[in-house]
């Protein structure tokens, strides 16, 4: 056998080893996900009934009730947060992608990287200082701001990434028609990137939906359904946290169920995001 054959054989062996490691890693990741899901199902599925979605929570000691106030609150606080984040996140992404030599961009990029890596609870602190303090109390709105702060850098980066995939020929063709640059961006670049933009928005929404920390001293939580965002509001992660550290058996079960609903919500959003991204243009 020549040296070349040996080298080839060694390469095949390394290749097989690497493939095995990759497979093992994948399996482990799936196993963890599966265990979490299975355990949550096992613990929480008993509490998952129609009442869970239609009724508010009950005081400790009483059985029954649901987490309607937390489910509705999650949608409101997260939805408002998205509305707050959307214009800033999109604008920052457009600036980064479409005006690469704009003088503020190095700072914007540094800022969005820093924010992206910041512990989520600090966004809560920021909203506490900026909204809760001046308004004199906890509120769903302040929670929405906290989640909004969290979503802005995510949106900025996803928008930048998606826009940079739009072929430069499209921009040039628009400019060559005598369209001003902002027109080209609004009417040609953004519509071309629409599917990717929607994906980014949904993923930011899903990411924020699972956060409890930024809401601890902003949205604060509420045992009853609250539709006024100027009042304290409940969300699933907040309620999950509160129930999980409570001493009550019944609440523990509902905490698991809250986890399941949250998991379902996030999975659904991610699936929608995947569908949106698969649609070409």
């Amino acid at each position, binding site marked *: 056998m020549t040296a070349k054959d040996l080298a080839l054989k060694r390469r095949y062996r390394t290749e097989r080893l690497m493939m095995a490691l990759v497979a093992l890693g994948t399996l482990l990741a799936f196993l963890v996900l599966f265990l979490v899901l299975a355990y949550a199902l096992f613990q929480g599925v008993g509490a998952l009934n129609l009442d869970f979605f239609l009724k508010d929570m009950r005081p400790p000691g009483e059985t029954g009730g649901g987490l309607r106030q937390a489910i509705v609150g999650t949608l409101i606080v997260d939805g408002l947060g998205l509305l707050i984040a959307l214009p800033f996140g999109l604008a920052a992404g457009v600036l980064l992608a479409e005006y690469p030599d704009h003088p503020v961009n190095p700072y914007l990029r540094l800022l969005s990287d820093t924010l992206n890596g910041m512990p989520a609870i600090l966004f809560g602190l920021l909203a506490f200082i900026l909204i809760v303090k001046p308004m004199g109390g906890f509120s769903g709105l302040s929670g929405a701001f906290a989640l909004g702060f969290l979503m802005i850098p995510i949106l900025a980066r996803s928008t930048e990434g998606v826009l940079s995939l739009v072929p430069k020929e499209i921009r*040039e063709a628009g400019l060559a028609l005598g369209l001003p640059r902002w027109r080209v961006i609004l009417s040609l670049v953004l519509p071309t990137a629409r599917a990717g933009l929607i994906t980014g928005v949904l993923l930011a929404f899903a990411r924020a939906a699972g956060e409890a920390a930024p809401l601890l001293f902003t949205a604060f939580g509420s045992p009853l359904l609250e539709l006024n965002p100027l009042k304290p509001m409940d969300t699933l992660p907040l309620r999950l946290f509160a129930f999980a550290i409570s001493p009550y058996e019944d609440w523990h079960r509902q905490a698991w169920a809250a986890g399941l609903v949250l998991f379902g919500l996030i999975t659904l959003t991610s699936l929608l995001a995947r569908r949106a991204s698969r649609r070409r243009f």
Partner: protein
Amino acid sequence: MVQEAVDVHMESRNLVVRYGNRVGVGVGGGVSLPLYRHRITALIGPSGCGKTTFLRALNRMHDLTPTARVEGEVLLDGENIYAPGVDPVLVRRRVGMVFQKPTAFPTMSIYDNVAAGLKLVGIRDRKRLDEAVERALKGAALWDEVKDRLRAPASGLSGGQQQRLTIARALAVEPEVLLMDEPTASLDPISTQAIEDLLLTLKEQVTVVIVTHNMQQAARVSDFTAFFLNGEMVEFGPTELLFTKPKDPRTEAYISGRFG
């Protein structure tokens, strides 16, 4: 056909375009080239000789390339388009461009592609748009093929049709000059033929500058030809003369197929 006296529509004077420190076009004192009204001027030369770079200087497309710098003048009806205070957007409305790769706007219908330039500058009148779209599509010899499916997505057209669509799109805003960068390079012979035929009627409306590295094409369609080599404009003259009696030995070498 009675042709009006030949007058200069556009003109470059000592034009040099640099990418960073490298000269893209304009070696040896810059390019000085007249472009005659209602005539077709062909830019020929081997790949990388600066044809595209020169063409893009004529409607200020280099403004978008951060590394590119333009020196010298480009006169459009005697006015320097690089003079301070000139709005590049207005220059590009008068000097349209068709690119090598057919680029229909993928999110738009055939109709909206052609109307894009007009709609996006605020023309909303239905009847006016309809007329402009029909005129432009007829001008680009595409009307008969698409008149029954104007609302269909433009991405469903063939490459040759998409290229004629981009020509129609450029014509719809009624430019005075049309710059074409190897418009048939990615097309089949039949589509190429269609576009070459089209060029001959187009010049009644617009002044055409066409880049091609196909010498036969230049000889077939153009009235004037400029030969570029290594960033230098070597020779310019009436097409017939340049191809039969080239003055520069480098031109002769190129057209007789000895390089490039």
